[in-house]
């Protein structure tokens, strides 16, 4: 029997789900990416639950010099920013997550943060 490889059809750009990128600044302590990822995820999961978090669909896109770019679904930025208020400790280091800018492209945020 011959196996025929079927080429996966990609969703065109115009029909893909819209997303938003939010730039956060970590104040007060130096944390590494892994610790941040863990602390961030635990807090959001406990607050929103699996369903709520799936709807927001947050993803850490970039972590550099205590500045983080997080991706989420369009229209859910408010929930994400509100949820991050609950992140107060990472590895017993007290931190403040300060949202600086929301944008539709990573480039704008990179230019703003100079990273």
């Amino acid at each position, binding site marked *: 029997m011959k196996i025929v490889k079927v080429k996966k059809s990609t969703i065109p750009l115009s029909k893909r789900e819209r997303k938003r990128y939010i730039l956060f600044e970590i*104040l*007060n302590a130096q944390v590494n990416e892994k610790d941040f990822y863990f602390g961030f995820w635990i807090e959001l999961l*406990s*607050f929103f639950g699996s369903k709520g978090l799936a709807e927001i669909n947050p993803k850490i896109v970039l972590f550099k010099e205590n500045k983080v770019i997080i991706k989420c679904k369009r229209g859910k930025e*408010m*929930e994400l*920013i*509100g949820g*991050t*208020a*609950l992140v*107060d400790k990472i590895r017993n280091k*007290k*931190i*403040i997550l*300060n*949202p600086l800018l929301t944008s539709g492209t990573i480039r704008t945020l990179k230019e703003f943060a100079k990273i």
Partner: protein
Amino acid sequence: MIFMVDLVYTQPLKELLQIAVYFREPTIVLVNNEKDEKVAKLNTLIPCYLFTEKTTDSELNKFRGKLKAVLGGSIKANELAVKIKADFLISPSNTKQFFDLALAKKLAENNTTVVFMFEELMKLNSFERHLYWKNYLEVVNYCKLKKTKFVVASGSKDALHVRPKIVRLCLAQMLGYPKELANSSIEQGFK
């Protein structure tokens, strides 16, 4: 002058000032005596007297004409806020509900702002947190109906628990308070 309303408890000044300057938000400090009031005024912070249900009438008369906040959380305390026409009613309900439509109406008439202290939510475990959140969804609904001012404040005793304005606005919106009302409530003028 117009200020962003963010209430915090009395705490070490140095850190609080650093945070307030960084966020460019002059915070309102809840004080209990004249000494704390003077310190706050000297450091460009806004003092506000905190009253509880145990406060006597003589104490209430003593601080007439100053910013007043009442710590709610019981029927008596909530009534006190209406009686003295306080500027702020802090945490009108907790894991139990003490807020209703009639109270919201009276507070709107007195131009009192209902304050949700964010740090109280952070301290709770996940079960209590859901009760707290559920009660505040109801509080916000009443505030929305009667157009009572509602604000989410940091309410912290530690400077590192102070949250910026945008986060507090988002939390108010998550509770169901309309964006325009949230904006107008958070920006208030004081003499």
